[in-house]
């Protein structure tokens, strides 16, 4: 077969070297906690930089799942037998862990769901259907993930309501004055992200919540990209709802959390009907169960909740402040080194960012870049990141996105930089 004219030689990638930087983190130990990091992809040590899509899982999480099925497995809230009691206790303990982790006031405010997507759909379909009527408005921002757009569109379409979108500037920052102006008399709920999955922007959440509350409008926060990167305190934020996914914060897929203020949750109609969410059923009348069970119909992902608890305990043990500092250090280093590559344009240059470096490379489509990096064992995301309106805002079809986790190192960022430079040579 014909070979490409220009030889491409990648520089030596010192991925085996002891990880440097990272204030106060024992990165070598942390990396050792994640079995998958020893994988080789195309003969190269895996460099996993697709953490905004899903994070890898530490051994304690994998062990929690195995332990549950080996020693506790039974249905919860119903059996008098020992296993059912054990399973119920472990599930309850996981809820307490989540409560502690986001500093909720009460465990009854923690609803286990499948993920942030289901959490947002739950609020749209219960609180939203009850309170949003014809001519009313739902306010979101221009940097939302599809999961914080589509559930509101479905609601608005059903109710004859309007979806309003607060704009962002060319750096990917929310225009706060525009946001404030868009909170009107007809605004029934505000739904905003804490960290943009496509741009990395950290939104000025406290101010936004204050603005909404001044007008008596509740705020739902999509915290899917925030929870892995910063300490979250729902009481300090004073948000009304907070949604996040377990799998982006080192837990398993299929489990996530909706936090809601107790008074709001109490007043909301149930989401799905079924077992566990009732106190009594007759054909004439059903009485719904108390919180949080009212919103947890059917046998839940018991092992998933327990494993999520293990994941949150694991990162709490490391310390969210340290994890946040490490993330900021990596992002700053990546912004500097990737941004210095000729032809690279960073997409999303907000003054406050977390976790995500999105960029395009002149003359190389993100998809081609993704394939070339994959040959080097480097996993990044390429595409629209389930945020097509963001892509439209920046007049691009797609970006390449590197996203970081607690186990990533500066050496891995160096490997990324080497891979991007190699891709440039292929397409020169």
């Amino acid at each position, binding site marked *: 077969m014909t*070979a*490409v004219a*220009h030889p491409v030689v990648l520089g030596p990638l010192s991925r085996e070297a002891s990880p440097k930087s990272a204030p106060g983190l024992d990165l070598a130990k942390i990396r050792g906690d994640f079995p998958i990091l020893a994988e080789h992809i195309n003969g190269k040590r895996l460099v996993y930089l697709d953490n905004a899509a899903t994070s890898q899982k530490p051994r304690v999480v994998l062990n929690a799942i195995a332990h549950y099925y080996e020693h506790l497995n039974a249905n919860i809230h119903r059996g008098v037998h020992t296993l059912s009691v054990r399973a119920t206790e472990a599930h309850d303990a996981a809820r307490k862990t989540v409560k502690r982790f986001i500093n909720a006031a009460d465990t009854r405010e923690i609803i286990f769901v499948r993920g942030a997507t289901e959490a947002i759909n739950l609020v749209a379909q219960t609180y939203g259907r009850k309170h949003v009527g014809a001519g009313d408005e739902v306010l979101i921002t221009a940097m939302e993930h599809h999961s914080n757009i589509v559930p509101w569109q479905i609601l608005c379409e059903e109710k004859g309501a309007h979806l309003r979108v607060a704009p962002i500037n060319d750096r990917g920052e929310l225009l706060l004055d525009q946001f404030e102006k868009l909170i009107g008399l007809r605004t029934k709920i505000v739904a905003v992200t804490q960290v943009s999955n496509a741009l990395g922007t950290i939104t000025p959440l406290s101010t936004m919540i204050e603005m909404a509350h001044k007008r008596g409008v509740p705020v739902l926060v999509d915290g899917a990209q925030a929870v892995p990167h910063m300490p979250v305190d729902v009481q300090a934020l004073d948000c009304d709802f907070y949604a996040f996914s377990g799998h982006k914060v080192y837990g398993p897929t299929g489990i996530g959390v909706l936090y809601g203020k107790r008074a709001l949750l109490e007043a909301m109609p149930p989401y799905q009907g079924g077992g566990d969410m009732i106190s009594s059923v007759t054909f004439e009348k059903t009485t719904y169960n108390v919180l949080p069970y009212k919103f947890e119909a059917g046998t839940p992902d018991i092992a998933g909740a327990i494993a999520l608890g293990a994941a949150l305990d694991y990162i709490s043990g490391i310390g969210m402040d340290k994890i946040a500092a490490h993330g900021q250090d990596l992002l700053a280093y990546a912004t500097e080194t990737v941004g210095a590559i000729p032809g690279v344009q960073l997409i999303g240059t907000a003054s406050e960012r977390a976790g995500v470096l999105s960029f395009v490379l002149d003359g190389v489509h993100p*998809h081609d870049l993704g394939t070339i990096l994959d040959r080097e064992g480097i996993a990044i995301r390429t595409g629209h990141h389930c945020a097509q309106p963001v892509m439209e805002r920046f007049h691009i*079809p797609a970006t390449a996105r590197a996203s970081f986790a607690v186990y990533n190192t500066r050496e891995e960022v160096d490997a990324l930089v080497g891979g991007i430079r190699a891709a440039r040579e*292929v397409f020169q």
Partner: protein
Amino acid sequence: MSAELGELSDLYQEVILEHSKAPRNFRKPEATNRHAEGYNPLCGDRCSVYLDVENGAIKDIGFQGSGCAISRASASMMTQALKGKSKEEAAKLFEEFHNLVTGDPEAMKNAADLGKLAAFGGVSKFPARVKCATLAWHTLQSALEGKEDETVSTE
């Protein structure tokens, strides 16, 4: 390309890179009577294929859109391969091309029959990229079937 990039040199063969940088028939022909839009929702690639079909034969063909190197080169080389071909020949070529990029052993063996298009044989080692290579062809098929107002999706 050096050995460091291994199978990449099978995917990004010189002819493919050359077509991706300077795509042929990257235009809307003056006279067209068939047209379809292709879209790959996974990566956001778009492809418009324009045809001038006369007496069952493709008299002129052009494409426009944005996409990765594989999708652009595939569209470019497709337009070259199809000019003057009958609708039936085009359909047959698509089938053979599709078999090639999905790694059908028979198609791999007979790749040389496809002429320049044989360069896409390397795509079969990159299953995630098959949709890139076939987007233009799916769009062509839709245009030939006269589905004017329908955007063909690779999903």
